[in-house]
């Protein structure tokens, strides 16, 4: 059984429109409970609270929507 995890990613999302473009794919994912993008931050940080979703899967979801994302290093 998986427990909830939080992934923190650096992205190239830059406008509200970009957030809208990824909202369907993230909202529709059954194991993603909550997500937000900090457009004020220089790394345009995407924060995803999910259950058993690997970081790579989130990166792929964004790439399919035409964006880039990577793990925000510790």
């Amino acid at each position, binding site marked *: 059984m998986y*427990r909830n995890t*939080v992934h923190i990613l650096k992205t190239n999302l830059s406008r509200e429109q970009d957030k809208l473009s990824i909202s369907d794919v993230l909202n529709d994912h059954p194991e993603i409970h909550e997500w937000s993008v*900090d457009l*004020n*931050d*220089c790394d345009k*940080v995407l924060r995803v*609270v999910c259950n058993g979703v690997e*970081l790579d899967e989130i990166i792929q979801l964004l790439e399919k929507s035409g964006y880039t994302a990577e793990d*925000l290093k510790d």
Partner: protein
Amino acid sequence: MFIYFCDALRLRDTKKEELVKTEAGKLIVEEGLKGFSMQKLAKRCNISVATLYIYYKDQDDLITSIGVEAAKRFTDETLRDFSPEMSFSEGLKIQWKNRARYALNFRQEMQLYEILRHSPFSDVVLGTATMAFKDVMKSFIKKAIANNELVPVTIEVYWCVAFGPLYNLIKFHVEKKSIGDRDFQLTDEALESALQLVLKALKP
């Protein structure tokens, strides 16, 4: 890979979280909201930016959170031992004591609160946190006017006369200087004599 279990989130490091809040407040007071960034804050706290995002959804979430906390502290401290049922002179005396204590004990947080009150965060910061406070103050003033203990003036005039002298004395104290570069330290006697003049001015 950056994974935090939500169990850990609930049990998150409260010491670290307090440090983040304190440093965030300091950073906003020193550099203003425009000078604030998660990168600068992380550096000051000696933690990673990613860790900040474990605690908060985004920059606005963090600023709102410390703003609401500051607003709550202001109202809690100002209303301590106070009741709107008190006589006007007794109530105002407690208000002065509370506001002076708050201003001196939470100086940096008070500056933060002032910045946020006059920023795009004002609605969310002032919203629920100060609602009860406003009601208490309104009822105190209304009762004082009805009991003929207070001259009926506009709220702005009331506030300036009631608290203007207090905040000026506090300002002198914080700056350690009054007019003409005179050394100044706030004493109970100075507070009391100013309060008596204010009460005299506000009585019908």
